């Protein structure tokens, strides 16, 4: 079993694209059902959703408010999972409910053994 990072990207900048509180509740439930399904297979390692605020640090210590304002796809959350290969990791990631939204994306990356 290897570990994989699932990065969830969506537009958290454009005002019109933001869900209402009621929609948000439905999204959260779907999200929890998806992660719960992975966890029920004992393949959930960790991870969480992220808040809307952020800071972006660039060379010469320039700090701006983030997430990256230039791109519409901000990282909205990440989880790490266990899977026997890339195919399995992708098949789990495919069911991520944010993929129901136009322009959203999910990226799967294999986690290697650290920085060494």
């Amino acid at each position: 079993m290897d570990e994989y990072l699932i990065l969830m990207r969506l537009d958290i900048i454009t005002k019109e694209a933001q869900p209402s509180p009621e929609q948000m509740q439905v999204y959260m439930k779907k999200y929890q059902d998806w992660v719960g399904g992975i966890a029920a297979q004992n393949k959930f390692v960790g991870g969480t959703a992220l808040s809307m605020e952020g800071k972006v640090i660039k060379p010469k210590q320039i700090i701006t408010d983030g997430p990256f304002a230039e791109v519409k796809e901000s990282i909205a959350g990440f989880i790490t999972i266990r899977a026997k290969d890339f195919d399995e990791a992708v098949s789990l990631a495919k069911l991520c409910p944010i993929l129901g939204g136009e322009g959203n994306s999910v990226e799967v990356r294999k986690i290697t053994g650290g920085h060494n």
Partner: protein
Amino acid sequence: MADQQLIPHLFRTEYRKIVAVLCKYFGLGGMENAEDIASETFLTATQTWGLHGIPSNPTAWLYGVAKNKAKNHLQRHTLFRDKIAPALKGDESMEQDLDLSPQNIIDSQLQMMFAICHPSISPEAQIGLSLRILCGFGIEEIADAFLTNKETINKRLFRAKEQLRTSGIKIGVPGPPEIEERLSPVLTTIYLLFNEGYYSISRDQPLRKDLCLEAIRLCTMLVENAATNQPQVNALLALMCFHASRFDARTDRNGGIILYEEQDPSLWNVDFISKGGYFLQCSATGNKLSRYHLEAGIAYWSTQRADIPEKWENILQFYNRLLQMEYSPIAALNRTYALSKVNGKAAAIVEAEKLELTDNHFYFALLGELYTSIDDEKARLHLQKAYSLAKTPADRQAIQKKMDRHATL
């Protein structure tokens, strides 16, 4: 109370108090002595009361005898020590009276709880010692609870006391910086104790119920003490109360298990349910969600009789969170059952088959349940597989019931 019932009753309630105070008095190296003195106290009571009748205040009488025995023990001990090490003469600090005031009894019990439920002691030893020292169970009762013999329990307790004696643990309730970390193994042991009673295969019903009630009593002590009255402690207490409410409904006259969906809700104990509700409310403070909060949430909704969508939706969401915190096969199976109630059997089958718990009879029992009326032949095969994998007569009996019902469909 009839005379012959008085001593067993007092043993039940007073032995654990006397032994906890004595353990604190002698230190963790003197646990054997503490147990001996507490036992001798009751032996003396049996003999004296048999001859001279029951004293007007039996409890005070017991405390008085325990105090004298403790003092005598120390004097003998000091005499011996003085002979081999005269330099140590004049140590007056240990000579003070044994303090059996209500406050010191509670303090001693709480402090012993933290000493016994210490991460450096094995969980098995923690439970054994808790039953002996904190709950005052006899060796025979502990052996019955674990379906083993007295020698095994004696050996286990001896090893546990050795571990405790050599561990260097200080007797005391930890302060605020440590308390959260140290509470965790205490709560684990209390919950294990409860589960031992709730799920064990011992057929001794009253004994099993006693184990559950003792776990609830220990947790209540933690809630009643300001330093240990934390949200997760209340959550655990709520959880145990909710479970305990079904104690009488979940077994039939022959000791067989009655599954949740077949229980008679009128047998659910409403006092326990409302107690659970109260402590669940008390647990809803702070910003940390423990597994006990999630399990208490599930247990709360399970006490709701009506099969409404809201019930199963909430249970599903709690299981989703619980599994992210800590995976267990039984939680994975229960989540899938809740999912079938929310999203239907077909959707649940897809999720269930991903679980691949192919050595688990509950897994096949669930699949049998889910396939019923979707593919009855498959359902039958799954139930058969479940039956062949079941390990206990009670489990086989429960699956047989499902098979019988399925055959008449």
